[in-house]
Every structure is written in C-alpha cells, then in structure tokens.
C-alpha cells in the first residue's frame, strides 16, 4: 500500500510500540560476534579453514533454500540463522576436515536438524551439533584427525585431507604433519593428552589457542570476549554459560582435589576443548533451550555436569557436543517442571 492511499487512521492492536530489536538483528549480531572467531581460525589454520567455513555456510544456505522450495515456504535464508549454523558447524570441525564431509554435515544440519521440523524456531536440537554429531558417527577417523596450526605456507597450501574427492577417503595427513609440524606436534588435543597421558596444557596456550583442536574451539579468550559482546547486547542469555561454568567447576574441582594426577583443574576443564564455544554460542541457542528462569540454570547445569562426566569417565575425550544434545532433548521436560510461580498464585493452586 503506498502512503497516499493510506486511510487517515489505521487499526492496530496494542501495544503500539515495539522494542527495536528483531530476530534478524539478533541473528546478524551473532554472525558479527562469530566473525572474529572465524578470523582467528583462518589466521591459525590458513586457507583450509577459510574454505571449510565457506563450504559449510554455503551448504547450509543452499539446503535451507532447497527445503523451503520443496515445502512451499518462503525462503528463510534472510533471517541469518542459517548462516550461524554454517559458521558454528565449521568452527566445530577439524581444520583439515575433507570438504565433502563438511558438505554432508551442513546438509544434515539443516535438512535433518532443522527443515524437517518446520524451520527456524521449531527444531528440537541444535542444528549445527546435529550435523556434527552425524559426521562424527559417520566418519569417526576423519573427525579426530587434528593438524597443527601456524604451519608454514598455510595461506596458500591446503591441508591434504581437505581436498579428498567426494565419497572417497582422505589421504593420511601424517606425512604432511611431519613435514610442516611445529616441533613436537603429536596430533592430540589437550583433552586427549590430559586424559590418556595426564599432560596438562598451559593456561596461556589454551587462552590464545596455540593448541590442536577444531577450527574454532581453540582460543578460549577470543570466544569468551565475543560471547560477552552478545551477552551485553542482551542477545544471548548469560545465565546459560554462567550455569555451565559453575556446574563444571563444582564437579571438576572436587575431582581435582581428590586426585590431581588424573583429574585436571576446573580452569583447564573450562578452557580446553569445545566447552567455551559450546557454552557461549551453542548451548545458548534459545530455540532448543528451556525458557523458564530456573529451567535455564538447570539446563546449563546439566550441560556442565554431563560434559565433565563424559570427559572424565566416558569413552570420549570431548563431551560438550553430546552434553548439549542431551540437554536439548531434556529441555522440554526441564521447562515443564520449572514453570515459574505466577504472580498471586495461591498455595492451593501451586499444588495442583
């Protein structure tokens, strides 16, 4: 309707004011917050990481468009949430992950994790993590093959496994690692070293990210700062990471005191692996977390506790992804047992 044709008065329902922050703006800001993390990842791992990020993001966008077309819904790429999924997915994969597998992950993330359930807002688990969990189960070797950062020539030379032909096994990166490695690179993440060899990486290394790991899960400090930005803009629920850190510390602290030789310090647990990225950017995906105030704390606590349990007592070295997925599945139940007490509820009502 053009302005001229407008009736003098227009009927709307109250409230007539809106807070000037929309879904699309929130999502866009999350993308901004992720860009520095991506940037650091590219600086650290070079062109392979760059292409990895592009491939996952592009696959996610294309998959979303495809499924929107198939189901006759308007194309929803414009809300930017799919870009977040793509970026986060890339950041959780090893830098030398074969691109075709990354594309599979992106397709599954959006197809199985999101579009199947009706798109934005209706998915039951974090789409990026669904994608990652799928490829972790499908290609367990490729996803645990770590390559060193800061390799010479990383800006113009691919990690050889990156360019595996579609559906074909990637070549062994052993030789490449030997010829490029910063000395003493063992191909093990700090978590694996800690778990199997009881060698704890230095806090400074964890903070700056000069350790092995996924493309984006390495510099805890940078991720933390970017997350803080979102929290301050009130686009992310700070209570979730807070609950995760708190629960993690409360569980791993006593363990460490009991046996410092085997169990790492809480600080190490929080800074290592994907916990920071998971807590700041993935557990906070509001679509799949409970909304109730007490529920949010409980949800974070579940993630923290499960992470420590899986890391210290489970078969895997890394537990954040599974902890978040399980907590996602739990969140409807958490929400239903933590419905807040309403204003003026009488005790009789509270019982029923």
């Amino acid at each position, binding site marked *: 309707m053009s302005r001229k044709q407008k009736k003098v008065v227009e009927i709307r329902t109250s409230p007539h004011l809106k807070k000037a922050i929309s879904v699309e703006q929130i999502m866009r800001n999350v993308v901004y917050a992720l860009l520095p993390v991506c940037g650091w990842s590219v600086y650290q791992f070079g062109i392979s990481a760059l292409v990895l990020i592009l491939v996952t993001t592009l696959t996610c966008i294309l998959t979303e468009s495809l499924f929107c077309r198939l189901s006759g819904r308007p194309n929803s790429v414009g809300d930017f949430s799919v870009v977040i999924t793509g970026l986060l997915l890339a950041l959780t994969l090893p830098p030398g992950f074969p691109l075709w597998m990354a594309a599979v992950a992106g397709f599954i993330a959006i197809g199985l994790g999101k579009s*199947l359930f009706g798109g934005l*807002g209706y998915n039951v688990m974090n789409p990026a993590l669904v994608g990652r969990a799928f490829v972790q189960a499908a290609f367990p070797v490729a996803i645990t093959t770590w390559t060193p950062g800061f390799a010479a020539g990383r800006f113009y030379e691919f990690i050889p496994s990156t360019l595996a032909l579609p559906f074909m096994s990637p070549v062994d990166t052993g030789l490449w690692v030997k010829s490029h490695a910063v000395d003493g690179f063992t191909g093990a993440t700090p978590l694996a070293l800690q778990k199997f060899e009881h060698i704890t990486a230095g806090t400074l290394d964890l903070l700056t990210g000069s350790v092995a790991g996924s493309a984006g899960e390495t510099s805890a400090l940078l991720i933390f700062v970017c997350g803080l930005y979102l929290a301050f803009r009130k686009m992310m629920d700070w209570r979730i990471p807070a609950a995760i850190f708190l629960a993690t510390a409360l569980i791993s602290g006593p363990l460490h005191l009991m046996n410092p030789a085997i169990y790492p310090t809480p600080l190490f647990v929080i800074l290592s692996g994907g916990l920071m990225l998971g807590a700041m950017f993935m557990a906070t995906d509001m679509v799949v977390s409970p909304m109730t105030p007490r529920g949010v704390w409980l949800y974070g606590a579940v993630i923290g506790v499960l992470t420590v349990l899986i890391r210290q007592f*489970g078969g895997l070295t890394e537990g954040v992804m*599974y902890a978040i*997925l399980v907590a996602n599945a739990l969140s409807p139940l958490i929400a239903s047992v933590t419905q807040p007490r309403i204003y003026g509820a009488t005790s009789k009502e509270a019982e029923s």
Partner: protein
Amino acid sequence: MDPNSLTFIFLNAALINNFVLALFLGLCPFLGVSAKKETAWNMGLATMFVMLVSSISAYGINWILVKFEIEFLRLICYIAVIASAVQLVEMTVKKFSPALFRALGIFLPLITTNCAILGLALFQTFREYDFFQSLAFSTGAGVGFTIALMLMAGLREKLELAKLPTVSQGAAMGLMLAGLLSLAFMGFAGLGGSHA
C-alpha cells in the same frame, strides 16, 4: 569400573546400551505411547515394573531349566511364565491398590508380550548374571526405557505446536526423533570404563 559391578550393569543398561536407543528393544511402545508426557510416564512405570517381575521370574525358571538340563525349552517357558507372572501381579495390584492399577492397568497387557521384556530375560540369561546383577540389569533397563520415553514425549509435545512440513507429520517424524536421541546417546559410550 568392573564390568560386573552392579553400578556398571545398571548404567550400561540405562544409558550406554539403552534398550530403545541402542539395542532396538521395545520400539512399538516407544513410538506408540510417547505422544504425551503423562501417559509416557505411566507407561515407563508400568514397564519398569513388568521388567522387574519378568527378570525375577526368568531368573527362577532358568535355575530350574539348568537344573533339569532342559534349556531347549527356555523360550517357551520364559514367555509362558512371564505372561502369567505379570497377570498374577496385575491381579494382586488390582486387589490391593486400585489407584496404581488404574495408572498402569491399560499398559500391562500391551507390555507383556513385547520384545523389551523378553529381550531382558534372554540377555540376562546369556550374560549369566546372578540374581542381584539381574535386578540391577532390569532396573537399569526400565529406567533407561523410561528416560528414552520421557525425552521422546517431551520432544513430541513440543512438536505438537510446531508447523511441521506435511511429509514429516507421520511415523517418519517419530523415527527421526528417535535417531536424533540415539545420536545424542552415543555420547555415553564407554561411560564408566576405566580409560586412563
């Protein structure tokens, strides 16, 4: 942890090798009775209960079968005895606690012949669990079944309110959800093993 310890057997049956999500046992009730949290909870309780009864009966029968060396009748005896034991307990419950019976009643006949129950009895025999291990195993299996059922019910209630694409409104959705849960439960792999 010792693979034969009660805690490990319990954890293993509840999470790591969850009956529904890893062993594919009891899928019919899992997909059929998980639309509402309320019914799912009752179904879970009923299953836990039947599992306990059948685990105990199976332990008893097996002891007799082994004694008389007629193990080849195991299957026939298991299914007959479990069904009657559940019937018996059902009648007792009906008499002594009508309220409990009302909550569990409609589910009991559904469960008696289902494969999770029989599977439980067979597994505990194959694994040569002693009496207490069998108890740990059956409670673990029951708890695991209930957890899976409740998670599923929560997700399905959530999806009730979603605008699902038409293709995914049927049974396919249930299977995909189960797949996602199963994927998430892979994180429990090896829990309690000593890996250091």
